[in-house]
Structures are given as C-alpha cells and as structure tokens.
C-alpha cells in the first residue's frame, strides 16, 4: 500500500507580520521610498530636486576695513 502525504500549500505572497510590524499602526508600514517593491520601478510620487548650479553676482560697498 502506498502512503500518500498531503502537504498544505503555502502562500508565499502573504507573510505573517513580525511582532514589531504587528504593533505598528497600518500607516507606519507604508514604504518610505519611491519604488514599487513589486516591480522595482519608480512610482513617480516623490518630488526630486533637479535644480542646476547657478551663478550669483553682487556688489558690496566698502565702508571701512576691519
């Protein structure tokens, strides 16, 4: 007689929250980076500063030397 073992399937997409995570309110668990962990692509939500170097010129009137 052949023994048949039935193994419970695991859903690896649903991991149990760690103790630390479980204590955090849901809002605190939101990713802080602008990357979709699922696809690795940028979500475009973050606002990046892409300003360029600029030149500033001005004149200062000499009154007296220190």
């Amino acid at each position: 007689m052949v023994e048949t073992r039935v193994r419970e399937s695991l859903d690896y997409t649903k991991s149990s929250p760690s103790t630390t995570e479980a204590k955090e309110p849901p809002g605190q668990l939101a990713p802080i980076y602008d990357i979709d962990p699922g696809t690795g692509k940028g979500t475009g939500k973050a606002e990046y500063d892409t300003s360029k170097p600029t030149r500033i010129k001005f004149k200062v009137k000499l009154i007296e030397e220190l």
Partner: protein
Amino acid sequence: METVVGVCDIEGEKFVGVSNTKDNRVCQGDIIKNVKYIEKIAEVDDYLEVSMINFPYVIVLSQDCDLSEDYDFRYNKTKAHENQDKILISLLVAPLYTAEQVLAGDHLSELELPSTGKPMKMQDLRKEKGKKPTSRYNLMTLNEIPRYHYLKFPGSVTISDSFIDFKHYFSANVNYLEQLKEKNFVCKINELYREAISQRFSSYLSRIGLP
C-alpha cells in the same frame, strides 16, 4: 535617532547606502544642499564685486579622521589642546549633478561662460537627441569612468540619481559648512560607500596623463 536606510537591491538595481544621522560636525560623505562657492572677489572703486556659484548638492570628500580631529581641536572637545596643530584651513567637496541632465549634457546650462556669455554646454551622452544613452554613459553608471561616481539614492532621499563630478571639486570653509549643515543637511553616505568614493577620488586626482 538614527535611521539607516541601507542598501536596497530591487531587481538588480543597486542603491547607495545612506543615513539621515546628523552629527554636529561635518563628516566625510555628508551631502549638503545649496553650497556657495566664491569664484571671484574684485575690488572696483569703492565696491567689492563678488561672484559665486550656488551648487544644489555637494558631497564632502575630506577624510573623516581629519574632520574629526579638526572639530576636536577647534572646540577642545576631548581636552584643552595646547596648540591648533590639527585645525583645517578648508575641506574638499564635489558637486552632484542630476544624471538625466548629465546625459543631455545640460547640467551647467544655467552658468554662462564668462568669455562668450553663452550657457555652458557639456558632452551630450545620447546617441541621438532623445534617444538611448551612449556606451560611455552606461560605463559612467557602472563607475567605469574615473571622472564620475554614480549615486542611485533610495526613495527616502529626494535627490534624483546623480553623478559626482570629481573634476569639479572645490574647497569650502569649515565653519561655513558647519553652519550651513545645520539647516541644509540632506543625508550621509554610509561608511563603506563613502570609502569607495574617497578611493576613486584620490585615484582620479593622482592619475597620470600619458602622451
């Protein structure tokens, strides 16, 4: 409280390790925004004419042990020092340029060339306008071109992917950066990554141009 963002590796994309820990002193690997470089001061009649360049982001390249000693000696942190042997005159920084703008070669377009008054134009690294990057650009992102160091920041830092341009390094006053860091500190590159940057910078500075 220290929050180390560390390195993410998402589908093969490598991010630089950064930390938002803000020390009191200036540290190697600090990224500070809106740093001004005084390029010229001239006395004309009763006026001083000042010309400065504002760099949106710079990274501190000076050795951290030098910066630590300087801070210690400057403010007598560990003990009352009898001399000022370790105090620095200035420290070295290098600008960060947005990768997308470096690709198009227009990252310095808001600076005019003094001799012509025209916007500065750098090498366009696209095969055709709006097309794919050249192999040189791809090598730059792999840190295979000595002049540049590519930084891909994790999303917690609102700086777009950038290049450090080692050719454009300049010096800055220690006190100036110390005061500026209080409000303009962005993040700090983690030690292992800053050492790699430092090593590449020194290697670039000491390169030998053969005929």
